[in-house]
């Protein structure tokens, strides 16, 4: 253990340069092109003629130091110790020697999957869920596990019309930012917060709590002479914003909490502009440990997209081409009153033409 006499603060993260593979350092900013050699394996070729190989593997994101030591041992063995992670929680092993690719994949295959490249389903961006969060309406790591068990074949292959990006967020806070994914799973509460009038006056600042509600559903009140708040339950849309500022207003409700499914978002500017995800399935029950209703619904959307979309069409582009009416028809998902927006910009989603497919 190192000994420091002075307390160091505000030093920031270490400089990235010390973690770069020598080939990367040498060819920094001078890359020419890349190719996907096979699912999970990339080669980047530099102006200089140098190549660096990347083997991409899945990680559950929630991992142990043991898991990390396992991958660092492989990086030592095959990659001169160099590795990185992607914005979708994949591990990337960086290799200078092409001959090390297959032996590395063989060792990785004992505990994870290699893939996540090109026209397939990459790793899932997700949140903490019941493992570590106070406001979650569902678990995140478990949902990712069961959904990707169903879709693993799309991770290790590249046979979809285009890439499909999945995300899971366990409540409307959306720490996983599921609002721009091809298919998103979002934990939802369906009942108003239950106010603990005993603790609220001590734990919560009333003006802040009142101001936190986007629908002005919270009003100050007093009960037996003690200041507290009341909720106009007709106005509550269960966003949990009040709970974030006031611990005495929990929303967790095992009977009613569950999962919604959203589709058609994208981040990239390729072909079409970035798009938000839109509601496909308003509610499915929390049914741990394997959430069969959720995995079935997601798999169905993926399979119909796989069959119906044209090459290089993302889910949202496919739906925009065929129209939402046909999306619901093809997937068999019921269109309900919950699909009609009633929040801030609702009017922008109303159809104001007579163009329809008959």
């Amino acid at each position, binding site marked *: 253990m*190192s000994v*420091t006499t002075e307390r160091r*603060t*505000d*030093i*920031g*993260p270490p*400089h*990235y340069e010390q*973690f770069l593979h020598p080939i990367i350092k040498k060819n*920094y*900013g001078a890359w020419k092109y*890349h*190719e996907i050699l096979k699912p999970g394996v990339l080669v*980047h070729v530099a102006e200089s003629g140098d190549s660096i190989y990347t083997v991409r593997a*899945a990680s559950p*994101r*929630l991992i*142990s*130091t*043991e*898991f990390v030591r396992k991958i*660092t041992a492989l990086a030592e063995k095959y990659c001169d110790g160099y590795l*990185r*992670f*992607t914005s979708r929680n994949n591990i990337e092993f960086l290799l200078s020697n092409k001959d090390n690719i297959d032996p590395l994949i063989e060792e990785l295959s004992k505990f994870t*999957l290699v893939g996540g490249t090109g026209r397939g389903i990459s790793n899932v961006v997700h*949140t903490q869920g*019941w*493992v*570590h*969060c*106070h406001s979650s309406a569902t678990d995140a790591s478990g949902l*990712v*596990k069961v959904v990707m*068990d169903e879709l*693993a074949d799309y991770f290790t292959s590249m046979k979809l019309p285009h890439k499909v990006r999945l995300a899971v*967020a366990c409540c*409307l806070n*959306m*720490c996983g930012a599921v609002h721009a994914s091809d298919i998103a799973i979002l934990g939802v509460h369906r009942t108003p917060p239950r106010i603990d009038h005993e603790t609220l006056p001590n734990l919560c600042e009333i003006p*802040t709590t009142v*101001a936190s509600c*986007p629908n002005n559903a919270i009003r100050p009140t007093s009960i037996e002479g003690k200041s507290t708040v009341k909720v106009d339950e007709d106005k509550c849309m269960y966003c*949990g914003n009040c709970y*974030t500022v006031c611990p005495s207003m929990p929303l967790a*409700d*095992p009977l009613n909490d569950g999962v919604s499914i959203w589709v058609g978002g994208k981040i*990239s*500017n*390729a*072909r*079409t502009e*970035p798009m938000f995800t839109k509601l496909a399935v308003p509610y499915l029950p929390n049914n*741990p*440990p*394997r959430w069969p209703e959720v995995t079935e619904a997601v798999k169905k959307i993926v399979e119909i997209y796989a069959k119906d979309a044209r*090459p*290089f069409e993302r889910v949202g582009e496919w739906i925009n081409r065929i129209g939402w009416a046909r999306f619901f028809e093809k997937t068999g998902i019921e269109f309900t009153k919950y699909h009609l927006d009633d*929040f801030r910009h609702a009017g922008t989603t109303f159809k104001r033409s007579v163009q329809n497919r008959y």
Partner: protein
Amino acid sequence: MSDELKTPLLDELEKGPWPSFVSDLKQMAPKKRMVRDLLGQLEKSYRDKRGYWKHGGLVGVMGYGGGVIGRYSALPEEFPGVSHFHTIRVNQPSGWFYTAKALNELMDIWDAHGSGLLNMHGSTGDLVFLGTVTDELEPTFRELTAKDWDLGGSGSDMRTPSCCVGPARCQNACYDTLALTYDLTHKYQDELHRPMFNYKFKIKMSGCPNDCTAAIARSDLGIIGIWKDDIQVDQAAFAEYLDSGMNVQEYVVEKCPTKCISIEGKEIKIDNSDCVKCMHCINMLPKALRVGKERGAAIVLGGKAPIVEGALFGSMMIPFMKMDDFEELHDLIERIWEFWDEHGKNRERIGECVERVGLAAFIEGIGLEPIPQMVTQPRDNPYIFYEEYYEEE
């Protein structure tokens, strides 16, 4: 309670091809009471269909207001190992590059001071150490800083900036995303560690419009690489794509959003004056097409998830800024923060603030001129607040 840990529901998550976090955690359980009790509590959550974590508490390291998130079990008697289960956000290196040696050192620190569980990485970008007790926070911090690591952001502060792989391993990078991330993180250490904003402020760097960090959706300030001149073409490589039998007409030409591509003989022709830099043709033909040479970044502002007023994508502030040095950007960031400090409300993200005060008032406040690139269309309503008019002399 029996000493043997029974998790029949979680055991179901050990089946199937995707790597199982349950198997990983179970391996750690005999060594760590914290992991054992985490599994116990999680099994109960799976049975009861609800979480058992209390609302966070105020804990941290001396002199910092961010970087640590307090977490306590709602069932401390049943699961004493997780009665305190705080999170430490460790600021990741630019581009999430590591060496095995550096990662192993981090794991040594975490094995000695915490649960041994972590996220690689959190949604904002940090390496997240999950689960330790209050008394271990300061010792963990001391060991981290001794190895040159520091904490990331949390609460109402500048959150840990993050970036794509950038020029380190991508031919599309239009500026040095890793250098800018390092620069901003170091320049704004005070804003990162000591929450004094209205709410969180996230910054993400993507090297091109493919936007691999989701800067447009997941950051208040997105810095997205872009070029101004012509796409670079290697006609010989293009001819090879044609000869390979690839359906370039259908998959590239017809997919161009502004229809500015045509094929003449074995050559590709691009009307660059109409190109909107969407990246599709470059993504499809990486050997033949490359981003231009006059490179910089577009600056978008206001992206966020739904809480409070609804989800927003970042909107265009500056279509092109040179990124040879970062002074112009520093200046812009500081003007944005100053405006937000003066006009923003508590728990109002910058995107919501701009919508409330109006884009015109906002850009005037930060010293930008109105340009058509900022909107998809001019207003279609006549309710204009005219500020100039004539008076009778």
